[in-house]
């Protein structure tokens, strides 16, 4: 019964991974990372249900806090890159490559 939730979590994690790999827009790639974090959260809550304890839910809560902090800093970085390069494509941030 919990297995379905885990399979869903796996599917979402893989979808997020594909998004990170193929999308060039930094914002969309970033949202894909969020999707992966949420997939992990779903697995944590499902395991909490399986074991009948709150630890998984608390872990999922901490993941959310960290994800929120990550979004704030990540978006600030995207905005500051956009200010200098006028683009949000991850291909354009290649100064170290030239």
């Amino acid at each position: 019964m919990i297995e379905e939730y885990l399979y869903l979590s796996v599917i979402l994690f893989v979808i997020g991974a594909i998004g990170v790999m193929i999308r060039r827009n930094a914002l969309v790639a970033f949202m894909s990372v969020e999707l992966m974090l949420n997939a992990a959260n779903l697995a944590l809550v499902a395991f909490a249900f399986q074991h009948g304890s709150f630890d998984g839910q608390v872990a999922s809560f901490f993941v959310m806090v960290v994800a929120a902090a990550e979004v704030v800093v990540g978006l600030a970085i995207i905005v500051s890159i956009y200010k200098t390069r006028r683009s949000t494509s991850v291909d354009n941030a290649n100064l170290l490559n030239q």
Partner: protein
Amino acid sequence: MNVVFWIFAPLMVLGGLGLILFRKAVYSALSMALAMISLAALYASLDAPFLFAIQIIVYTGAVLMLFLFVMMLVGVDTPDSIVETIKGQRVLSALGALGLLGLLVFAIGGQITTEPNTMQGATVAAGGNVEGVAQLLFGRYVWVFELTSALLITAAVGAMILAHAQRTQPKLGQREQAEARMKAYAASGAHPGSLPNSGVFATSNSIATPALLPDGTISQESVSATLAQRGAQVDSVQLRQVTSEAFADAERVGDEEDEEL
């Protein structure tokens, strides 16, 4: 529980696929909102009402709105390029994703053989879901909880520093602006007064409608340069047509009445 799962799990997968497949970033963000709300419903089905509320407040409320704000800041109309910059990247990504899927499914497939314990016992023992989470949060995990506050403050300060823009030129005050205008007037004869208003017509008074000069041509100064550049400018001559036709009709009726007299 099963019904809720089979309603929201496909919705969530749809949202996830929309997130990576839509080429417009705003559609991706809205797909993600669908996925996040479905996930909240799944939390509720797993006896986690606290996380259900937090998921909606934090993800759809705060995180997604932040994404949309930034999208508006950096421009929404820049679709993703579909040109591959690294050769064979898409094929390799597909292979990697398939490998990851296989690995994860292999790792978890058939691992859980016992019936779930369910949250019932723990919830009753703690006196409620929120109480149970709080007992752990302020008991066993209180140190981690304190650390998250440090993390959040650091993140907020970091974001402020990253997004802060330092002025490279001093800010122009009213006096400097007036002086610059008078200098421009002396040098090139540019009008030092305020710019003309946008056009006001019977069917439109939007700021995108340029005013017409007495000779019937469009006054470019009456519309913001940004709007003109974006191509949002409305054709005033066409708008004026309605009024001109109405006047022509009125004149014709007047002439006919004159003839009848």
